[in-house]
């Protein structure tokens, strides 16, 4: 796939992915741009691979953590979550999930976001995170268990 086409199609999703992973929204575009630039340099090999998404997410995660070390240390600032007037229930639920993710162990958050938002397979998630597939499996199970009560709490304040 052509790099431009890939970016055009995936960039918004990649931005959302890094925000869900804990990147402040103001920095998310920057992190994605930096990651895409790294990928651009190796694009022929990336595009020819069986799982370009796995590679891109691997670079994305690395870039995110580099940026985190250099620029900000905290987790997702929940105080900055967007409020939308009018009590849109879908919006409220989304914000509740983001709060839940922010409160979660980062390892759990990573697997949830990569598996169920970025739609990576277990194997590709393992590649992206640099861990064994079995680790992804066990973390996912624990993360799903961890998310349920957090979301439930948010829904019934």
């Amino acid at each position, binding site marked *: 796939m052509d790099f431009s086409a890939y970016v055009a199609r995936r960039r*918004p999703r990649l931005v959302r992915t890094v925000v869900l992973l804990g990147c402040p929204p103001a920095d998310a575009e920057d992190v994605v*741009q930096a990651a895409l630039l790294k990928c651009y340099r190796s694009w022929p*090999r990336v595009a020819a691979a069986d799982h370009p998404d796995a590679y891109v997410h691997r670079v994305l995660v690395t870039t995110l953590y580099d940026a985190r070390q250099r620029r900000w240390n905290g987790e997702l600032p929940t105080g900055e*979550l967007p409020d939308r007037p009018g009590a849109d229930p879908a919006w409220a*639920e*989304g914000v509740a999930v983001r709060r839940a993710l922010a409160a979660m162990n980062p390892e759990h958050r990573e697997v949830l976001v990569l598996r169920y938002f970025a739609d990576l397979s277990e194997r590709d998630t393992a590649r992206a995170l640099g861990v064994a597939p079995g680790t992804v499996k066990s973390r996912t199970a624990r993360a799903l268990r961890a998310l349920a009560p957090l979301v439930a709490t948010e829904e019934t304040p």
Partner: protein
Amino acid sequence: MSEEFLNEAEARRLLGAAAATIEVDDPAPLTLTGLPEPRPHRRWSLLVAVAASVVLLASAAWVVARQLGDGKQVPPEPAERPTTGEHAYGQGRVPPVVGGSAAEARGVLTAAGFRVVVEQLQSCTDPAGIVRSSDPTAGATLAPAGRVRLVVTADAGADCPEPPANGAVWDLVRQARGFSGPDVCAGGDCDEVLPVLAELATRPERLEVAEYDDADLRCLALAQTPEPGARRYILHIGWQTGRLTGVCPRPPVVQVDIRDGRVAAVRVRGPLPDAADLTMLPDPTPPRRATALQFVRWARTGEDPPAFAGRVRNLTPGFAVAWNDRPTDRSTWSGCSGLGFPACGLDPVAAAYRSTGAVELATGIPPCAGGDRWGEEADVVRVSAPGFACDDWYVLLWIDDAGVIYGVR
């Protein structure tokens, strides 16, 4: 949501709902203007530098220029002209000269004991007679009487459709560096911008100037449209060379809007540079130099590995293996992410293997490098081609006092 274990479909739905609360601007149309298609072994930075009418700088210590004089009276500096934040380099290092005239640069470099070679580059966008780049770049170590190649802009004459568009940008850079020229700062934000510009311009990296049009401005820090009729230029460190639509320069950047040949607005975007990142460390010690050079020989030939610790920390981004227990086996360094991309450019041994010719050694992690700040920075030997730039290949080796490599990136 009362069950204790979410199923996968529900997890997907919830994550989707969370993502829907994150607003993302639609990307600009992604045409990679002026860029070649990426090729595995190509130094596209050089191509981009030409294609995107990018200009670099990193200018000269104006104090030295003044002391030198070259026979002319230098006008007194306005008292309010800020000059703090510049980087000055000691003996044996290339002083920053970009932004100066050829004569100013020649004076500074000759005084520092270097020889100067000038190449002319015809340009329709830059005013004539300005040093756009030096090779090696500012701060690089160079032997006495070593040669510094300057690229100086030249008038392209009748081939150009209009007068140089970014003359005012260069005037601003020259003002920031204290070179002679018109005062183009109208006060206000300029007071903040000039010292930052001087700081950026004297870093041991490439400062670049690129014109951005409306379509490019959707990227992070630059989303504010310039005033009607103004052209927007971005000055930034050449961590990524040139202009790539949809991919923004790394902050901090200096944003300059030019209207009718004058600076209409100027602003710093992004966090200010951290001067602590730029402390110059002493040159690598002889044992470290010897080990680093042996590493390059070994990477290129496979013979006579350098001294490695039993376990070597692998800090290369994308690596799944944090520690390498068989460092003398070159294959253990390949395949940057474990995803089946051998020699993917993130591989330190492959980087040295693919390089040819002489290498340059320096101490410390380049300020433009992301990744882990691990170990003692004074132990880090940066191996690169001469005239290091961040978007070229380089390898970082953590080498202890005895010349043993204990970390690689």
